[in-house]
């Protein structure tokens, strides 16, 4: 069966008063989007070892239109491959918020699902979808490349069907996710990304976007300062205020 048969483009009857072409373009966009995905693989754990065979000639995920990308700004999928320590989770959050929407998160290995073999450890986060919306979990310890490919195909299917909307959930329920982050990182936790402003920009500001946790964030929020530019290897000089 050719691949294209799996993703039929359905043209539904336009609703009354609606733009006749809007649905068509939405579905076409979703279809095209699902066929060209760039993965940012955040290789925190053991599962990373299954990705090189999945990417390269043995299983070759490029035949599905999926290829690796080095920068979060230019990636669609954030692939978390294994356990996430609390320290790492902060970096993962920063990475996730830097990605441009629409973005998708895949949790690979059982550690991202429920803590896996580190279920009892004080140092690792147990449930990735407490802190960011996860579109798809690929369970296993570790999942083989076949499972990774199957999971990616499922994600492609979900994207084409318009079901992979985790990134919208992050804006709509930002208060919930922020609350879980604050529980772990302390109430002074803040990221350089202004998620609330982004939610406004995307028109996704919902009733659960703002809440007690975002109020707490706004109390503690410090304005960002530009990074200091420095040339050479010498000790940093004190900048006059």
């Amino acid at each position: 069966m050719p691949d294209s048969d799996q993703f039929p483009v359905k043209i539904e009857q336009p609703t009354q008063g609606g733009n006749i072409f809007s649905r068509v373009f939405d579905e076409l966009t979703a279809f095209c989007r699902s066929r060209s995905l760039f993965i940012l693989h955040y290789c925190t754990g053991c599962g990373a070892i299954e990705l090189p065979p999945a990417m390269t000639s043995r299983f070759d995920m490029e035949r599905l239109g999926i290829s690796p990308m080095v920068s979060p700004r230019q990636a669609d999928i954030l692939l978390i491959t294994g356990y996430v320590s609390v320290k790492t989770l902060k970096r993962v959050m920063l990475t996730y918020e830097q990605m441009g929407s629409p973005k998708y998160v895949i949790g690979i290995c059982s550690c991202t699902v429920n803590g896996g073999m580190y279920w009892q450890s004080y140092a690792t986060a147990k449930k990735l979808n407490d802190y960011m919306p996860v579109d798809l979990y690929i369970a296993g310890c570790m999942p083989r490349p076949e499972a990774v490919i199957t999971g990616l195909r499922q994600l492609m299917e979900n994207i084409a069907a318009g079901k992979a909307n985790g990134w919208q959930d992050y804006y709509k329920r930002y208060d919930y996710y922020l609350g879980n982050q604050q529980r772990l990182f302390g109430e002074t936790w803040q990221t350089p990304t202004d998620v609330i402003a982004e939610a406004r920009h995307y028109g996704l500001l919902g009733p659960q976007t703002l809440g007690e946790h975002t109020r707490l964030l706004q109390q503690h929020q410090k304005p960002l300062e530009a990074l200091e530019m420095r040339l050479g290897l010498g000790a940093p000089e004190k900048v006059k205020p």
Partner: protein
Amino acid sequence: MSDAHLPVERLSIILGEVKDVRVSQRGPRRTRLDVAADALPALLELLKGRAGYVHLSAISCVDWPADDQFELVYHLWSYELNALVSVHTRIARDPGVYVSVYDIYHPAGFFERDIHEMYGVFFEGAPDMEKFILTEWDGPPPMRKEFDSEAWVNEHFDWQDYRPDWLLELEAQGGGIVIPPDEQRFSRRGVTESDDES
């Protein structure tokens, strides 16, 4: 290697200079020395300066809550004899303060910083007692025996929901989890559905 050149034979001369050292030979090239806490720095000086044990491989710490003590083990290696000496000492658990051996062995700085973080033992004279690996950690020292990791996890993390909708879908297709959630070790034992809702 003849018996006359066993590491412990060579050590016997310098060990006489430190009071109350208990020597036990654990193997042909492994020696264990038990020494009082106040004599340990002098013993390390001698071992490094006169016996050639120039390499401090590690400092380990053992918590003995029943004795109310920490045991510190200094692992020393000699490249000339290819032999290992472990110097054991015990310090009181409270207040858990000991002297740094950074001036004798510089790598000790890292090990002491690590032990300070994991056990809360403070080393006087160490160059840096700041956080090392657990930079985001503000709980009690996690390697102490009284630290209950499972209780900490229960307090700070939520467990995965074992009856989500997508699992019902999988079960309808003939899949699902093999071990029932209540029998899994990391299930939320004792947590009933009514507790969840309240």
